[in-house]
């Protein structure tokens, strides 16, 4: 009897692929037609149709996963995400919206990046001080690359040859050789001032280092903001060296490149201002008042939209005139998170955690509409080929 059962099981197992060849249900035909939303507390990834603005499906990752950031591979086939409390990476098939693989990584995975050829997925693990490297063809972990200090964000060059890892627990940017998956070098942004020895309470208790190395649209330079030092270091990606250090405001978060590639906008959370850097001149051309707890910047119609997490405002700036252009009040008592900009640069998809919504902002008119109940505590969004895709 047991043997018969085993046989039947075997037949079914080998005939399983038949189901796909007959056509497993394809839910998403065009990966560019959806917005991917990460929901931290409902532990799922939801997909919203960009035209109908309806949730077309969710992929539940499991209890206690608490995903942080999700991204779609450039070929549109997979969505990858790290479960911060599960210490695992999750890979979802976009067409069928099915979770196809769960891979144990290191401690507390947060931000990630995918190579431009969609071959490798680099998952940053800040608490594990490592970057997990996953092969997206074999769906296997290649290695946990160590030697980092709270790696927060990873940036690939457009040709995929190198990856730059920003270390929030240090003042250097790591360079990874993507062919060999090895940490090649560390680029220090700036020396910590000697006078810091007078303040061990500040410098030895907590460190606000580099959260991201933001690449220019042409891939030539990286702009890495250092929170403690109040500067942005400009790295030449051909020679991997610092070519300029630009002083900005207090506690800068990171640099965000404008759509036209001429400016970097840096929110300074220490003094609630933004610094606008001219990329050609490599200097600050404007310092403007902003709001508290800025978590992201998006661009549309020559304007910068700066998201303030705790004030429920999105601050708008005219990048031609270098002046404030008002602010958009999204609601009351909200916790705004990050936004993705559509591929055509017209709309921004802003997640709002405490009211579990997504707000679609029109970049031209500054009007917005709310899509409620996208999931519990939405943390971030992603649009394939979108102008701005990032996480805080």
């Amino acid at each position, binding site marked *: 009897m047991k043997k018969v059962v085993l*046989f039947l099981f075997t037949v079914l197992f080998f005939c399983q692929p038949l189901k796909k060849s007959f056509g497993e249900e394809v839910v998403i035909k065009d990966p560019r037609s959806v917005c991917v939303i990460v929901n931290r507390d409902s532990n799922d990834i939801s997909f919203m149709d960009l035209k109908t603005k309806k949730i077309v499906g969710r992929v539940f990752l499991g209890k206690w996963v608490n995903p942080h950031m999700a991204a779609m591979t450039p070929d549109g086939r997979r969505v990858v995400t790290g479960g911060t409390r599960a210490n695992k990476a999750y890979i979802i098939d976009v067409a069928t919206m099915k979770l196809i693989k769960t891979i144990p990584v290191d401690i507390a995975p947060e931000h990630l990046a995918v190579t431009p050829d969609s071959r490798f997925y680099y998952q940053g693990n800040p608490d594990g001080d490592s970057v997990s490297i996953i092969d997206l063809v074999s769906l296997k972990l290649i290695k946990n690359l160590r030697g980092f200090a709270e790696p927060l964000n990873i940036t690939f060059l457009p040709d995929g040859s190198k990856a730059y890892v920003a270390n929030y627990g240090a003042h250097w940017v790591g360079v990874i050789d993507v062919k060999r998956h090895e940490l090649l070098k560390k680029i220090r942004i700036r020396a910590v001032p000697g006078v810091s020895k007078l*303040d061990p309470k500040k410098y030895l208790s907590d460190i606000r280092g580099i959260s991201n190395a933001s690449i220019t649209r042409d891939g030539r330079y990286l702009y890495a903001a250092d929170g403690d030092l109040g500067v942005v270091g400009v790295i030449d990606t051909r020679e991997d060296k610092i070519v300029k250090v630009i002083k900005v405001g207090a506690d800068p978060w990171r640099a965000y490149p404008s759509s036209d590639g001429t400016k970097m906008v840096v929110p300074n959370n220490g003094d609630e201002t933004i610094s606008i850097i001219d990329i050609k001149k490599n200097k600050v051309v404007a310092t403007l008042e902003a709001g508290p707890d800025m978590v992201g910047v998006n661009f549309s119609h020559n304007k910068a939209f700066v998201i303030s997490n705790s004030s429920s405002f999105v601050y708008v700036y005219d990048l031609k005139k270098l002046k404030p252009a008002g*602010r958009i009040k999204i609601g009351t008592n909200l916790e705004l998170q990050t936004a993705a900009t559509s591929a055509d640069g017209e709309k921004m998809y802003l997640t709002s955690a405490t009211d579990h919504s997504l707000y679609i902002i029109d970049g031209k008119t500054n009007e917005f509409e709310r899509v409620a109940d996208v999931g519990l*505590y939405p943390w971030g969004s992603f649009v394939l080929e979108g102008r701005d895709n990032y996480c805080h």
Partner: protein
Amino acid sequence: MIAPFVTRCLPALFIFCFLFPSLVFAEGGGKEGSKDDSKFLLLEEKTRDLDERLRELESRAVLSEPELLVKQKEISVCDNGHEYDGAREGKCPLDGLPLVKSFTYQREKVYRRQTISEKIEEVLAGEAKKGVSIGVSGTATAQEAVRLKGNSNEADGDLFGVGSMDVFFIAKPALYTMFFIDIEAIGGYSPDKLIDNISGLNSDNARRKDARDIDGREMNLREAWLSTELLGQRLTVTGGILDLTNYFDSNTVANDETTQFITDTLVNNPLLAAPANNGAGLTAVFDPKVGIVFKAGIQRGENAENNMTEKNYSVVEIDYLSHFGGLPEGHYRIWYRFNENTKRENMAWGTSIDQKLTPSITLFGRFGQQFTSKDFKRDDYFYSGGVQFKTPYVIGLQDAWAIGFQSTDMASGEDETLLEGYYNLFLTDNLKTSFHLQYLADSNVGGARKSYVLPGLRVQVDF
């Protein structure tokens, strides 16, 4: 379609043969069967063992409880109280009454894992938000007066020192509302005691009730106000005991006596003449965040004796954020004030400008004109200006230095010119020190003309 089917089922057939050889081949089936049985028994025992260990673990482990969060949701309700999820059109299915859109709050379970330290931090942050924040700021200055010209009975080589400490209390009793108290203690000897001048050689000391008081220790309630934001947080209204110089005649590089210039007229325009006793007042600031701001303020006058509304001081101001000719940002402010009434001699106007030339160099300037009565041939005038430098023209990344001058020309005949330079050394977030050099170039206040050089040192701590 048939070919894949056949290809995929072939392995299954091979396995069937392997599993049931007795059906396919005649001999050897019995011995294979007993081996499989014992393997199976072993597996069963192992599974039972694992089961038991898991049960034991579950019984001893501390289970994580899901977080309970309260969520706002849309509902539709009829007059009889029948409630439905979401926004519904039409009538109530139960009693046919029309449905009205509304909202409610409901609890939901959230499977969010937190570390213990995150939980503690969250609780502490919540408590901090509810409670009162306390800040402390202390400033100590030392100045020496070196007389270059003037009467011999005035200061020469004398050393002066003034110390002040402010304790701030900040609370947020409601959304977009702040309550603020500033209690100050100040004491010491200022050069203003011995050197007659109108510039105010120590701006910290100028805030005392009697700036020439030699015994010099006093404690007073400097500010106590409530502020709230209205009209979509575009209008900020503040009422209480106010220091109007915090709202009017601001300047990015010449407005703070604790970290910038020490001379009072390089901190504020003397013709603004805001009541020094910080009486009860009200300010309104309308800022639509498009680069232009409108301000208005009213305060009990210094000479009021019987009630709050007599002899009021009022001021209006317009601020503009500029980007002229490709320059970095500049702030251009113009104000007009009325002291007690609209008599000519009680009115004045002025401007305050700061303009960045580069991210490191900022120019500043002030101008004021106080109208005088017909008894005088001309009005009072005030000018000031200067420049501030930041990195890379400094030693430490966050240091700053500046030079400034001021010139006051009163209709009464008193006039005075003063120059000051300072270097502010940023040591830590909580500790700064600065070196000052004031040159009272020419002053006829108090009679004979005089000039002084006053080197000084200031130390400032704040938490």
